[in-house]
Structures are given as C-alpha cells and as structure tokens.
C-alpha cells in the first residue's frame, strides 16, 4: 500500500523551474533512494515534503492525507521526520535533551503544570526520559546521554540526528545524504543501521545519497532526478543499466 504519494509536483523560483512533474510513490516500510547529479533538485524535494517551501503545483499525500500547505511542525506531527545534509543538532544541549525535543510532539503537560511541577510534569518527564534512554541504547549511544551534542564524534552526530527524528514516531523518515563525509567502515555500519531502523520501527525511508554502494546495497527502489524531473525509476538492477541514467551521470558518447 502506498504511504507517500507525490503527484505532478513542481516548484519554480522566479523564472527557474527547480522541479517539474515529479512523481514519487513510497510504500509502507520500503527503502527508496533518491539520486541524481548535483543540482538535480533532490533536497528541494525534501523541502517540499516537509513544507519548508510550498510547491507551485502538485499534490503530496501521506497515508491519504494531503499535507501541502501545512506548517512544517504539523507535517512532523502527521508523520514525516527528516535529517539534514549538514547535520543540524541542538549543539549546546545534551544528547538526551536532543532526543527529548523529538519526543516533545508526544508530551502534553501544559506550561503551568511544568512551572508548578505538578505530578503530570514528573510523570511525563520520567516516562519520556526512560523512552529516550531506551532509544539511545538501541543505537549504542546510552553512555553518551549527558554529553553535549557538539562534542560527539561525527558518525555519532549523524546517528543522533536519526534518533531524534525517530523520537517523533514518523511513518516516513527522510535522510538527506546520511553517508556524507563517512569512510567505508562507517558507511557499512550506517547501511546496517538504516536496515535495522526499517525492520525494527516498520517505517518507510526515503534517502538522498551519492554513495552508490550504499544506494544499490539497501534501496528496494531508486528514483533518479535530473534537471528537476524524474528520468528513471526502478530496482537497483534496472537503474544500473538504464541508459538515461548513465547519460545523466557520465554524459553521452559522441558517436551514439
């Protein structure tokens, strides 16, 4: 069953058509890769999915619910969480606090109850702190709970961003170049993590990545963007042999 349906999506910045007629379908707990040369519009797709920009045309539905024109924080509440190309953590806050901000969408106690420290405050804080610690433990970060986020090594910062996104209980997780700046060992570990996240939390993942080894290794479906339009979609095998994709990446031979 389709979880995310993007139809006819387009956006123009001034006279520039950044995206046109983009069509993406992501099924429940499917891992989909979004690839394409630099400037193809991949991150723009993410920004449209999370309503950072409003599309000029087209529809986006998540679980049958239209999310175009909503506020970004409401999109998160309806089930899309994301990570960023250049890591965006809450740098001066502890690892635990970072995850607790993610859990905020589930917490309910009011401002007054928090200030007066009524039972609801203690109960919810304890409950979600427990959950946050469990989630950190799943990713081997339990020992770092009280570390300031900016003091984590790079690979763990990437992981923490994923943990924070998972804390919002998304149905769909968007990963923007999760392997950027990682070496082969770290990338291999990341592939395991992504698969593990999908299996454990039963969520769909849409990822942008330049590392073809990772993309071909874990994606069940790949969508290729070039100059703002989808030029191919299919299984890794199909994409590897697709001439249009090869042309987009390597250029066309002169005598073809």
């Amino acid at each position: 069953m389709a979880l995310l349906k993007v139809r006819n999506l387009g956006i123009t910045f001034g006279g520039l058509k950044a995206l046109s007629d983009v069509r993406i379908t992501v099924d429940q707990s499917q891992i989909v890769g979004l690839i394409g040369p630099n400037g193809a519009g991949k991150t723009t797709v993410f920004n449209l999915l999370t309503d950072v920009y409003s599309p000029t045309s087209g529809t986006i539905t998540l679980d049958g619910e239209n999310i175009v024109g909503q506020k970004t924080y409401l999109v998160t509440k309806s089930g899309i969480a994301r990570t960023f190309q250049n890591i965006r953590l809450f740098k001066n806050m502890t690892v635990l606090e970072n995850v607790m901000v993610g859990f905020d969408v589930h917490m309910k106690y009011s401002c007054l109850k928090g200030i007066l420290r009524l039972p609801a405050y203690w109960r919810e804080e304890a409950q979600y702190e427990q959950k946050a610690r469990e989630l950190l433990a799943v990713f081997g970060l339990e020992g770092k709970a009280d570390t300031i986020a900016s003091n984590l090594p790079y690979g763990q910062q990437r992981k923490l961003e994923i943990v924070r996104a998972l804390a919002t209980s998304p149905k769909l997780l968007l990963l923007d170049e999760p392997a950027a700046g990682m070496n082969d060992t770290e990338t291999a570990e990341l592939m395991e993590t992504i698969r593990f996240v999908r299996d454990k939390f039963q969520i769909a993942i849409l990822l942008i990545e330049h590392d073809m080894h990772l993309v071909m290794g874990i994606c069940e479906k790949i969508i290729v963007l070039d100059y703002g339009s989808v030029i191919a979609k299919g299984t890794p095998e199909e994409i590897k042999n697709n001439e249009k994709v090869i042309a987009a990446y390597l250029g066309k031979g002169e005598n073809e």
Partner: protein
Amino acid sequence: MRKNLRSYIINIIAVVVLFFILWGLMLAGIIDSYYSGILVTVGINIILAASLNLSTGFLGQLVLGHAGFMSVGAYAAALFTMNMPEGIPLMVRFLISLLVGGLVAAIFGIAIGIPALRLRGDYLAIITLGFAEIIRVVILNLGFTGGGQGLKNIPTPTDDTASYFAIVFWIMVLVLFVLYSFIRSRQGRAIKSIRDDEIAAESCGINTTYYKILGFTVSAFFAGIAGGLYAHYITILDPSNFGFMRSIEILVMVVLGGMGSFTGSILAATVLTALPEALRAFSDYRMLIYSLLLIVMMIFKPSGLLGTYEFSLTRLLDKLMKRVPKAKSKSKEG
C-alpha cells in the same frame, strides 16, 4: 524524585539562611539603610537580568528593549496602586499592582513580539530598541503618566528599607524559581532548541513561532514585575530612567554572566550593581569600565562568565562530601 527533593531542600535551606543573614545584619544595623538600598536594587536587577536572559540567552533573540517592558510594568503598577480605593490595605494593593504591572508588560510583550519576532539578529535588536523608545516617548507625552515631570507620590508599602528588601528578596526567589522550572520543562527545552537551530526545531515538531512569543512574553512579564518593584521603591517615576542605556545595562549583565545561565545572571547583576557603588569615586567612568569589561570578556571568554553552565549547590555539596557527582541533580542557588 528523591534526588530532586533533596536538591529542593538544600536550596530552600540555603536561600533561607542567606535571607536571615542579610536580614539579621540589617536589623543589627551592620548593613545600614544605604547598603540595604543597594541590596534592593541588586534584587530588582537580578530579576531584570534573569528575565532578559530568558529571551536573549535561552531563546537566542537579541533584545535591546528590556527597559521598555520594565517601564510599562512600573507605570502600570504605580498607577494601579495610586488609583485603587484607599480602603484596601496598602500591602494588598501593592502585591496586586505588581501582578498587574507584569500582566500589562506581558500584553505589550505579545503585541510587540508578534511582529518583531519575524526578524532575527541585528534587525530584531533594532526593532526592539525602537519599540522601547516609542514606549518612552509615549509615556513622556501622556497626561496621566505625569509626562516629563514624572509620576510622583507613589505609595510605598513600607518606608523601612530592610522590610522592602525582604519583599524584594522573596519575590526575586519566586521569580527565579519560576524561570528555572520553566526552562527545565518541555517548553523550556523547546525554547533552547530554537536558539540552537530553528530549522531543526521546526522539523522536530516544535511550533517555533508560538514558543518564541511565549518566551518573549514571559520575559516581558517578569521585567514588568521588576518595574513594579522599582516604582514602589523609588516612589517617583521619570521616563528618562528607562532609556536605551538602561536596556544596555541589563544586557551587559546577561552577556557578562553568561547567555543561558541564570546563576550567571545572578552573579553579574550582583557584581555590576554593587561595583559602581563601591567605586563611587569613579562613577563618571562607569560606562567606560563597562565597555572595557565587555571587550575583555568578548576576547577572553565570549560565552560569559558561566557560559551556559548553572552553578549547583547540590552538586557542590556532593563534591565536598566526596560523593560521586551526578549531573542530574542540577539546581539553582538563591
């Protein structure tokens, strides 16, 4: 939970002990009324610095108009006390008027915050500065505020400086407790996350517009309360007391103490209020010393004295008693 209880008890004992030492010294005449007056100002400045720290240090929005909110609170509270029926005991009128001062300042906070918080950084600083000046000029030209001649004969709940100190002290403790609890709740966490990365906060499901206005309003509310305390202590209000320099003075306390540390604000407000009095002879050079202090600070410790670190009495005691310090039991010092 037990750990928190222990932490509360330690801090309550510390605050009570501190109060009775100062109070006792005042009653014994060792701290004369001149010095108790300075302590009253210290208390008011701590409230101002801590409340500005909420919007500047924790929310990360550079606000240059804190004196504006203070003046709104001061005038609202003073006018309220003066115009309430005489039959009500002065103390009751005073306490209600403080609350009224805070609420009126909070309303101004919402009204200014909604348009102003669309901007950030320098632009927000300029627009808040502008609003504070507008408030000052309007007060200067209105009839019922006394205009340039000032609002005179504000009744004070007690003529005794030591008793007024007691009032200020406990209100200050209450304000600090509220601010501290606020910043350690989920709302406070949301506010800190906006400071660190607004885009990431929004994508974590935080309604950033709402929390920015909330933080700004709470900050204005307590500035209003500080204004009310100031009005009933000074008993005469003059718009020129709430100019640009007053806002800067408060901001200097926040920056010096550490953006994002209430204990830092307490420390800086105390030092920066007491120091000019101690250096009475050099009072002409106060602003010069301020600027030098700031420059030195920016070069050697740009995050302020304490940075985002909160001093914790509980942790200190744990260390002294050679226990394993646990970062969880952070707490405030009164």
